[in-house]
């Protein structure tokens, strides 16, 4: 599809910083999006949550930008900004009127090159409090809020960094020191470990000159660590029960699968859609619509740089046993295995995915982030058409092949049940 074939320019500064330029002057706005190739997968046991806490510290100012002024400068330019941390990377992004491009390059470069001297114990103590509140508000105080953490800690061995949540444990967050923050910066925050996307309304020569001016002088570091992780498998099924302040019981089933963009990744994505992506999808139709044994059901394929897993989550209607839901889920797996997937179901999923690609192009920030994502995983930013073809090429046989490879293997089963029950 022509629409998905993007014109871009990619080059490297001498210090190793990758730069990707993508022009779209529909509106007078410009966005920068920078990915550092470090996330919670780069953490060690006892230091969980440092990648995310570090992201918070990056908004606390740098040598030439006082505390709070990073936000203030961008907001007074009419811009918005944020960052996010995942298992595999940390990103920072801002979107401003296009005449403020130089401002955001100055801000991003200042915290890439001149962050450490502006770090103080006071700033760290404040952000430790903020992040503890974030964890309590978004995980501990949410219904089923700890389920994911319990699930992955059982799916992965204790020392595997995918075994803990990116937010980190409350204890680890509380104990971080200035030294921890500095050492994370030294290991991972180097121009050579980052990629900057500039997207939107800009003049290419001007953008290149400004990028060289602000980022060119930042020194690269020699010692950058990447985790060495072996493939993981479960030797036997695991069963966990967790009590929570909830009204309804919920079951989680999780299997190991493969990494992002690996052989079966797109087939697994399509499989989630075939199972629970719409009203007519297999599990939704049977369990929620026809039999009304579940209030909701979702299948989800997580695929990261170092591993992947497939999860089915179902909330039981009052009075329905989780064992019954489990049986019905496996019965439908058997049914698909024996009778296959029909062409219309497959087409429905593929059409949804195809239009989803076009819908997602509405907004320049998500385009910039996607360019960075393709560059990170595939080393080619213009991979929209390739990505779409991965889905279009999935056949019914590919789906059937998933059972032997993944769903016949041991899995983790988690039950979340109301506290009041015995």
């Amino acid at each position: 599809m022509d629409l998905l074939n993007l014109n871009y320019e990619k080059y490297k500064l001498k210090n190793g910083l990758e730069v990707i330029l993508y022009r779209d002057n529909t509106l007078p706005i410009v966005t920068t999006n920078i990915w550092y190739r470090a996330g919670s997968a780069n953490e060690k046991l006892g230091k969980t949550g440092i990648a995310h806490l570090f992201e918070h510290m990056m908004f606390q100012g740098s040598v030439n930008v006082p505390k709070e002024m990073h936000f203030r400068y961008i907001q007074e330019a009419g811009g918005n900004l944020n960052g996010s941390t995942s298992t595999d990377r940390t990103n920072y992004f801002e979107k401003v009127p296009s005449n403020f491009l130089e401002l955001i390059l100055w801000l991003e470069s200042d915290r890439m090159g001149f962050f450490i001297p502006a770090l103080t114990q006071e700033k760290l103590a404040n952000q430790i409090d903020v992040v503890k509140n974030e964890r309590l508000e978004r995980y501990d105080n949410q219904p089923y809020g700890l389920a994911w953490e319990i699930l992955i800690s059982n799916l992965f061995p204790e020392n595997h960094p995918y075994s803990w949540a990116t937010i980190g444990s409350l204890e680890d967050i509380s104990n971080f020191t200035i030294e921890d923050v500095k050492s994370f910066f030294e290991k991972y925050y180097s121009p050579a470990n980052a990629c900057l996307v500039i997207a939107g309304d800009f003049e290419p020569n001007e953008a290149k000159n400004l990028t060289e001016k602000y980022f060119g002088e930042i020194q690269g570091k020699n010692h950058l660590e990447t985790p060495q992780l072996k493939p993981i498998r479960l030797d036997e099924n695991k069963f966990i029960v967790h009590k929570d302040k909830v009204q309804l019981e919920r079951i989680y089933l999780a299997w190991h699968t493969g990494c992002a963009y690996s052989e079966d990744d797109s087939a697994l994505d399509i499989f989630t859609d075939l199972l629970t992506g719409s009203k007519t999808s297999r599990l939704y139709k049977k369990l929620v619509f026809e039999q009304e044994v579940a209030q909701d059901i979702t299948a989800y394929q997580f695929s990261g740089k170092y591993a992947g897993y497939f999860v089915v989550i179902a909330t039981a209607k009052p009075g329905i046993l989780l064992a019954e839901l489990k049986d019905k889920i496996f019965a439908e797996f058997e049914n698909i295995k024996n009778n296959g997937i029909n062409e219309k179901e497959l087409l429905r999923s593929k059409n949804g995915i195809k239009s989803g690609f076009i819908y997602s192009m509405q907004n320049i920030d998500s385009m910039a982030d996607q360019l960075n994502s393709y560059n990170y995983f595939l080393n080619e930013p213009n991979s929209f058409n390739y990505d779409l073809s991965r889905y279009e090429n999935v056949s019914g046989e590919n789906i059937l092949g998933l059972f032997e490879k993944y769903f016949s293997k041991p899995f983790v089963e988690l039950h979340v049940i109301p506290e009041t029950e015995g």
Partner: protein
Amino acid sequence: MIFNRTVKPKPAKNISFGLPQIEKFKLQNGLDVIFIQKKKLPIIRLSLIINAGSKFDPENKKGLSNLLAMVIDEGAGKYNALELSEEFDILGANFSVNSNHDKIYFTLQTLTENFDKSLELFCTVIKSPHFSEEDFLRQKRKTLTHLLQLKDDPEEIADTVFSYVLFGEQNPYAFPTSGYDSHIELISINDIKNYYNMHLTPSNSTLVVVGDSSSKNIIEKLEQNIGSWRLEGTKIKKNFDTQGTSNQIFLVDKKDSVQTEIRMGYPSSKRSMDDFFPKLVLNTILGGPFTSRINLNLRENKGYTYGASSSFGYLQESGFFIVSTSVGIENTASAIKEILYELNKIREGITEDELEFAKSFLIRQFPSSFETYRQISSNLTTMVIHSLPDNYFNNYIENLNRISIEEVNKAALENIFTSNLSTIIVGDKEKLLSQLKSENFENIVSTDYNGKPAIL
């Protein structure tokens, strides 16, 4: 290259931004249509805004409007519920029906190449819903289970109690859109059909269209597909007077919570062109963006929370002011005090520097609020709900530019109070009660999850 990194770069030359053209027309059945052509991508987005939200729920049937929205796309025309969903899916079209206090919304996002077919389905749902007993009962059971689940969510509880104590029993905005289980039990399929006949009419609706098409094509296709939608309906008058709330703390017990959800506020004026812009600038300084006073104090200075904000909420017939945050239990009393401090302080006036910041923030972000099809559609929806003038967006920047510090200070004195302010806290009662008492807070009452009095 030698340059001075300590100096903040200045903006390059000024930018120009052309507002998209708004076209308005009326179909033969009386339906108002607002259209903006946007060609960037082969996408068309439709939003039918029907004045039929939960504010029209009958006294003993709270939840009726929402249940209608849950049932209406469960089968229409020649399609049953599953077939209808399948038809939209195979076109790669996103279709949904949602409701809030004021409106029911039908939303469709489709590729231009599938517009004709998607529009036909969209209109079929509006004109010819099945409302079968079987589909109705299934959706009713689903809603009842959903209400059960809402009891788990402290944010949801805080918002529900906030509306209830603020607006008071006599006001339709006091009740949650999702309704009450005891009321939903009483609702029959005939109630749904009557509500549909009464409220879901062309003259009670506006259709917003944004996308890669022409007004000529849109009018033609709409006349073809929705021209036969010709219900007359019945207009209902409701009283939206608010009860004055007293200066109380409403404590909702959520045993073993690890955080406290806080809402503080009071009823405020409905949206008006007379004071909307001064209030917008005021709140931008007080509790809007990240760098506003309340967030900097509670988050970046005290570390009590992950985030705190305030806003003027605008309903079609009313309005409110709200401060909203979630804090560690041990900081509940301190957080309430800091919020009161900020509310009192802003009444003493703002600085020129703050005024410049707020105006700059609001004016410069204006172009980026027209980026996506959804954003443009949502801007037009706001115009419809609040009957804003046709030149609203044309004059937006000028209206902000001319705001003086005196106008903002006047808006603060007229709209920000610490008396007659209701405070809702949702958390562990035992821990909260002793903390509040030792900090000399008075007028603490206990409520259930719906805001009704409970034993303290």
